[in-house]
């Protein structure tokens, strides 16, 4: 009884902590999105379901839904299959140049879709769409799985090997189950990214292939059919919720405490005899899917009318580039600061381990709620801002601060998903031991959980910065004062006539790629030094 009474204020404290990010999300995501969807069910005089029924009866809707699910599933499976192998090579092994490679694979994540569209515009649009989705999201799997794998205690697999298990059996029965939290987590992310992918489908689908997301864009921005858009938004939320529910159910079954070690002691040197297969697969993926398209971009940025030239870069550096870079970096830092602060709070709350089943269910719901922004259209949120944030004290519609806020909403799920695996992997016995030895919960938090969190922060920061640097969708739907970020500048240059503008657009894309890779490498290196608490 006594202990119970003492734990209650703790729970209340965590509810208070959760209230901060929850309020943020409510104001800048839930309210605007719901307000716009609600408009769709109101025909000016009364509430109606006609729009919903019309959309439900349209064959086009169902085709869009199918297309969304199919392409996203196939792309997710491909990403997982190649990404887990890539995680092994880039995070479990040790070889020179590894850091640079880790940075390089993140570049696609931020490339403007028009650039990717040019690279993947082969003869078959559907194949191009799926490949481009893999191209974008490969790094999400590699990095999320890799971050965990790099610190798995190797003694378990050594024990399995000593007991006579061959390499495959060890991988299948020991390593993969240990990695499952990260695999499931990244699978959910990639699926949601693919299912809500807008630019790729617009660019490569040529108006012939639709996803729910492109349909929402069309119905909202082009014909202002809000009831159709509302129905589609609801369909989208259902898909997202199902996806999150499935992954969290799976996650709960597989959740296990892991012994984590500092990275340096658990990685092993590259050994050709043992590692040739995963290395070859990863090299093939990196070369075929990442290097070739990016090299193509680089080459195109250096060629004009058949000659080699640096004109694109020269005009760019003489003009708009530095200003846009500065704007992009400032916005990215602001967005990352918001996303990280809230992300840490959410991760800490969600990683609590309540003893009661209702408590666990409540936390799973909270976790899912913070993933929702991934699956809801930027158009819906952007247009929702117009009808919600339009009165003092929250007349932010045309304020510049809305840009980093909107980007933070987009980056938050990724930050939470990156931080959670490290927190969940803390052995509960360690916390129990701390409590037994008289440490208060606050002290356990400070000495065990926060250091663990610190290890994930570099990666989360990198993802948050990269998301913001490459963000175009939400930004372009905001009525912001004219201060273009790099993606906005690239988009504008591409849509202007004349060889010089095209040259400059390509050069700016290369610049954005280099900038992102640099930021990613630096962010990952800048994490706090490993704290070895074992």
């Amino acid at each position, binding site marked *: 009884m006594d202990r119970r009474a003492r734990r209650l204020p703790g729970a209340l404290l965590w509810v208070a902590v959760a209230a901060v990010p929850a309020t943020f999300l409510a104001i800048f995501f839930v309210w605007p999105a719901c307000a716009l969807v609600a408009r769709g069910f109101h025909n000016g005089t009364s509430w109606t379901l006609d729009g919903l029924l019309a959309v439900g009866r349209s064959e086009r809707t169902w085709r869009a839904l199918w297309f969304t699910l199919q392409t996203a599933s196939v792309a997710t499976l491909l990403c997982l299959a190649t990404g887990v192998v890539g995680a092994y090579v880039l995070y479990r092994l040790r070889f020179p140049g590894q850091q640079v490679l880790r940075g390089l694979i993140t570049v696609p994540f931020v490339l403007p879709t028009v650039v990717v569209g040019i690279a993947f515009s082969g003869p078959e649009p559907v194949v191009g769409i799926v490949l481009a989705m893999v191209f974008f999201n490969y790094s999400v799997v590699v990095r999320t799985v890799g971050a965990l794998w790099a610190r798995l205690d190797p003694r378990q697999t050594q024990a399995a090997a000593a007991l006579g298990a061959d390499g495959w059996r060890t991988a299948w029965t020991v390593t993969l189950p240990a990695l499952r939290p990260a695999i499931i987590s990244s699978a959910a992310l990639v699926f949601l990214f693919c299912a809500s992918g807008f630019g790729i489908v617009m660019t490569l689908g040529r108006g012939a292939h639709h996803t729910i997301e492109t349909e929402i864009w069309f119905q909202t921005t082009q014909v202002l059919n809000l009831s159709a858009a509302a129905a589609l938004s609801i369909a989208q939320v259902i898909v997202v919720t199902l996806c999150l529910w499935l992954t969290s159910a799976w996650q709960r079954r597989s959740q296990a405490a892991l012994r984590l070690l500092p990275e340096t002691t658990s990685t092993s040197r590259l050994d050709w005899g043992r590692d040739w297969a995963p290395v070859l697969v990863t090299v093939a993926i990196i070369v075929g899917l990442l290097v070739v398209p990016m090299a193509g971009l680089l080459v195109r940025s250096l060629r004009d009318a058949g000659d080699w030239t640096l004109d694109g870069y020269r005009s760019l550096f003489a003009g708009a580039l530095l200003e846009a870079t500065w704007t992009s970096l400032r916005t990215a830092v602001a967005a990352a600061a918001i996303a990280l602060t809230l992300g840490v709070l959410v991760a800490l709350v969600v990683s609590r381990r309540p003893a009661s089943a209702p408590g666990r269910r409540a936390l799973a719901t909270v976790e899912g709620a913070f993933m929702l922004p991934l699956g809801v259209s930027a158009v819906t949120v952007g247009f929702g801002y117009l009808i919600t944030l*339009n009165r003092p004290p929250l007349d932010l519609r045309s304020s510049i601060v809305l840009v980093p806020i909107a980007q933070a909403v987009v980056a938050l799920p990724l930050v939470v998903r990156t931080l959670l695996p490290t927190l969940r992997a803390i052995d509960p016995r360690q916390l129990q031991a701390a409590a037994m030895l008289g440490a208060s919960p606050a002290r356990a938090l400070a000495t065990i959980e926060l250091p663990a969190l610190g290890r994930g922060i570099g990666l989360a920061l990198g993802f948050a910065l990269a998301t913001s640097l490459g963000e175009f969708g939400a930004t372009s739907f905001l*009525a912001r004062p004219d201060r273009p970020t790099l993606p906005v500048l690239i988009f504008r240059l591409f849509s202007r006539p004349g060889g010089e503008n095209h040259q400059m657009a390509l050069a700016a894309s290369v610049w954005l790629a280099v900038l992102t890779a640099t930021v990613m490498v630096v962010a990952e290196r800048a994490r706090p030094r490993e704290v070895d608490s074992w």
Partner: protein
Amino acid sequence: MRIRALAVGVAAVALVACSGGQAAEPSSSDSAGGGEITVISHDSFNIPDELKQQFEQETGLKVTYTPLQDTGAMVNQLVLSKDAPLGDVVFGIDNTFASRAEQQGIVDAYVSPALDERAKSLATEQMTPIDFGDVCVNADKVWFESNNLPIPQTLDDLASAQYKDLLVAPSPATSSPGLAFLFTTVGQKGDGWLDYMRDLKANGALFVSGWTEAYNVEFSAGEGQGKRPLVLSYATSPAWTIGDDGNSTTVNLPDTCFRQVEYAAVLHGAKNPEGARKFVDFLLSDAVQASIPENMYMYPVIEATELPEEWVKFAPLSEAPTHVDAATIDEHREQWIQEWAEAIG
């Protein structure tokens, strides 16, 4: 020249934006004359920095520029926010969205007295025309010469076997020039437009997602040096393909053009309607009109404005552009796009 202008323009934009932060505060001025205004536009709006500063100095108005995305999205955002308008004046509503804007009541009538006779003929009841241009099929002259084929003239030519597999166009479902081409077929073929589109598709026409992909990837005279010598682009595009001999390597086909007119208008519920009207007049001033070709790639609406030399030589407007009634467009836009997407896309 163009690059420097662009550099200056962007620097200006940044400058203006820096001062724009405060304008978003709820305390913005509502007095007539002086004070502040907010200009809503689509993403392609661009006037030189010096002119923007000059306007601020002459009127004492502080101007915040707020570019939104494409014209369609912009109009719809204005419709959604009409109870609490985003700004005072809007630039870039075109003739295909004019009737929606006026019917939804997002603008207040203002036709500037600065218009000349030709410009007056382009004005709507409530909005002032600023610039205009044609969306036309362009041909790669060099390709047609070296293949000994006459350059096609009409829509029917484009669908004839002689020109099989030669045309690339942005899709009407995803791009505004693509949609303008759809209106051209509606204007010329009436109810038979969709059959014509089917013929075009059967004749090997390639539809891609946007103008960049069509012109700079697939078009043989574009940056990507693609395979197709016919592309849907703008009447002015030939002015950007001047070869070493000083002649343009491309030409537009005047019988395939659709006329786009862009308007400026005072937003309904503007906090500073007086300032908004001044801005509309400013867009018709000689200096701004003269800057339009190099900065927005459209023809200035005031006839006396001097045009760049290459435009006069190589980028003539169509004498008889295709016309479709604005109200008809607004009524059928969605249906036409859906029909196109079902049949062709």
